[in-house]
C-alpha cells in the first residue's frame, strides 16, 4: 500500500444486462509505479478498457464493481463518492480515447474545451486558462495556437484532434494517463507521430501511462510492462522482454505468432488463433482459453489454472506451466 501509483487487487466487475450477468472482469490484479508505462493487450471484449475505466469510476451502466480493491495515488477508489471522483478525473488521472473525430464536442471551440478542464480543476480565471491552453497546444506540437483555440473540431484533422485530446488530458499534469487505443482511428504516419509525442511528454512530465491496445508493435516499443488479457482475466503479465522473448501462456504465444515479422522467410505464413472468444454470459468452469488452445488438457476444461510465477514480474495462469514445473520438480 502506498508505494504503488495504481494497485488493483482481485477486481471483479460485471454488467447486469437483461440477458444476464456478463462477467467482464474476473479477478484482475495489476500494479503500476509512478512514471511507468504499462501496456494492456488483448482482443476486443477482453476487458482492457473496462479495467481502465473502472479506475476512473467511469464504468458504464449497467456495469458494477462486485469485488476486489482499487487504489490510485492514495485514494481508495471503492469507497469514493461520485463527487470526490470528479475531483480526480481530468486532474490526477485522465484519458485519451480511441476516436478523436467524435471525442470532442462539435459545437464548442477547441479553446473552450481545453479551458473548461483547466478552470474546473485549478480555479484559474478564463484569461489565465487561455494562456495555459496556448502553452498546452504548443506542448503537443500544434502550431498557431491562438488561431486553433478559436477553431471548431471539424476544422482540424484527425491527428490534430488527437493532439487536442492529449492537451486536454495533460492540462492538469495528471499522475496517470490512460490511453485507450489512442492511434487505432488514425493513419499510420500520424500514429507514429502521436506515439512519439506521448513518449516525449511522458519523459517531460513524468506521468505513468496505461496503454490499451491490440497492436503488439506499439507495446513493444513503448511499454515497460505488459498485461495480456483474455476474457476478463490477465492471463500473463511480465516485462516487455519477458513477454516477447519468453512467452508462457498459449494465448500470448498465439498472439506473437500472428504478427508479421520482417526477418521471417518468404514462405512462412502467419498463424492465426483459431476460434472465437468465449461468451462472458456463461463463462466456462476451467481456463477461458481452453476451447481455442492447441495444447488443451482435460484439467484445463475442469479447473481454473492457478498462478505460476517465473520472476517477481512475470506470471501466468496456465496448466502447461504447472505441468512443466511439476515434472521439473520445482513446484
Amino acid at each position, binding site marked *: 500500500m502506498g508505494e504503488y501509483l495504481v494497485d488493483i487487487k482481485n477486481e471483479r466487475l460485471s454488467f447486469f444486462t437483461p440477458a444476464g450477468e456478463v462477467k467482464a472482469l474476473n479477478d484482475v490484479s495489476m500494479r503500476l509505479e509512478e512514471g511507468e508505462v504499462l501496456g494492456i493487450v488483448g482482443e476486443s471484449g477482453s476487458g482492457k478498457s473496462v479495467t481502465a475505466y473502472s479506475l*476512473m469510476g*467511469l464504468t458504464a451502466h449497467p456495469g458494477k464493481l462486485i469485488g476486489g480493491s482499487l487504489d490510485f495515488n492514495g485514494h481508495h477508489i471503492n469507497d469514493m463518492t461520485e463527487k470526490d*471522483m*470528479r*475531483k*480526480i*478525473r*481530468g*486532474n490526477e488521472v*485522465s*484519458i485519451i*480515447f480511441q*476516436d478523436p473525430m*467524435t*471525442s*470532442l*464536442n*462539435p*459545437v*464548442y471551440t477547441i479553446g473552450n474545451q481545453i479551458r*473548461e*478542464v483547466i478552470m*474546473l*480543476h485549478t480555479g484559474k480565471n478564463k484569461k489565465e486558462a487561455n494562456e495555459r491552453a496556448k502553452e498546452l497546444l504548443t506542448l503537443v506540437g500544434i502550431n498557431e495556437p491562438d488561431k486553433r483555440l478559436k477553431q*471548431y473540431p*471539424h476544422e482540424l484533422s484527425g491527428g490534430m484532434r488527437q493532439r487536442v*485530446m492529449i492537451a*486536454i488530458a495533460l492540462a492538469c499534469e495528471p499522475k496517470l494517463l490512460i490511453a485507450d487505443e489512442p492511434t487505432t482511428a488514425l493513419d499510420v504516419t500520424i500514429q507514429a507521430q502521436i506515439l512519439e509525442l506521448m513518449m516525449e511528454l511522458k519523459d517531460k512530465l513524468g506521468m505513468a501511462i496505461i496503454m490499451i491496445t491490440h497492436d503488439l508493435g506499439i507495446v513493444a516499443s513503448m511499454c515497460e510492462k505488459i498485461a495480456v488479457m483474455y476474457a476478463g482475466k490477465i492471463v500473463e503479465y511480465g516485462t516487455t522482454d519477458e513477454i516477447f522473448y519468453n512467452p508462457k501462456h498459449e494465448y500470448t504465444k498465439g498472439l506473437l505468432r500472428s504478427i508479421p515479422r520482417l526477418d521471417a522467410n518468404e514462405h512462412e505464413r502467419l498463424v492465426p488463433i483459431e476460434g472465437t472468444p468465449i461468451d462472458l454470459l456463461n463463462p466456462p468452469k476451467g481456463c477461458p482459453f481452453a476451447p481455442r488452445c492447441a495444447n488443451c488438457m482435460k484439467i484445463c476444461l475442469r479447473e481454473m489454472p492457478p498462478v505460476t510465477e517465473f520472476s517477481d514480474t512475470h506470471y501466468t495462469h496456465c496448466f502447461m506451466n504447472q505441468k512443466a514445473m511439476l515434472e521439473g520438480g520445482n513446484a
Partner: protein
Amino acid sequence: MIKYIIKRLVLAFVTIFTVATLTFFLMNMVPGGPFLSEKAISPKAQAALEAKYGLDKPLFQQYLTYISDAMHGDFGDSLKQRGRTVSSIIATKFPVSARVGGVSIIVALCFGIPLGCIAALNRGKPVDNIISVLSTCGIAVPSFVICTVLMYFLGVHLGWFPTFGLTSWKHYVMPVIALSFYPTAYIMRLMRSSMLDVLGQDYMRTARAKGLSQFVSLFKHALRNAILPVITYVGPMTAYTLTGSFIVEKIFTIPGLGGEFIGSITNRDYTVIMGTTIFLATIMVFMNVIVDIVYKLVDPRIKLK
C-alpha cells in the same frame, strides 16, 4: 451571412408567389362562388355584383389584376364582409390568434424540452414510461376532444375558467392547454430521442472524464447538440400556431385568424382566401429562414450557402 439572408428573401418571394398562383387557380376551379347562396338573388343583381368585383372578366385577367394589386400592397375588399378590406381583417384577427398561439408555443417549449430530457435520463424507468404514455396521448388525441374534455371538467364542472371569449388571463388557460398539447407531446418525443442519441456520444464520455458534474455536462455539452431536431420542428409549428387553429378558436369562441381562414373557404370569399393564404405562407417562409439562422448559431458545422 448577409448574402445568405438576401438570397433566402429572394427565394421566399418566389415561394410566396407560387403559393399565391396555385391558390388562385385552385380556388377558382372549385365549384360555387361568393354570390351563390341559398337565398336566390336576381340574375341581374348577381351580374352587377360580379361586374363590381371584376369576376365577369376572363380568369387570367383577374389573376393579373390581383397579382399586380397585391404587389402594391392592396389585397382587395372582402366579398362577404361589406366594407372591410382583407388587410384590416388580418390586422384585427391575427394579433388575437398570435397572442394565444405565442403563449402556447412558450408553454410547449417549457414543458416539452425538460420532460423529454428527464425521460431520456431515466430511460426505461417508470418516469420515462409515464412521459412516453403522456406524449403518445398528446399526439393521438385530436384537439376537439381535448377542448371538449377541458371545457366539461374545468369550465362547466369545476367552473374555474370561462368557456368562451378572450378578455382576461383566465380565458387563455383552456385554449392554451388545447393548443399546446400536441406540440408539447411532439417536442417531448423529439427531445427524448435526440437526447438519448447525444448521451451515447463519445464527447459526453469525454465530458465525464474531464471531471465535469452531470449538470454541467448535460446543460453545456448535451443540450446544445440535442436541441437541433426540436428547432427544426419549432419553426413551422410556430407559423401554424401563431396563425390560429380553426377548431380551438371555434370551440372557445375566439375571434382569431384560424376561424377566418376556414370561414372564408366555405364562403368562397376569394379575396380573404388569397389574403390569409399568402399571409400564412409568408410567416411559414420567414420562420424557416429564422430556423436556418438559429441552426447556424447552435451548430458551427452547418454552412449557410
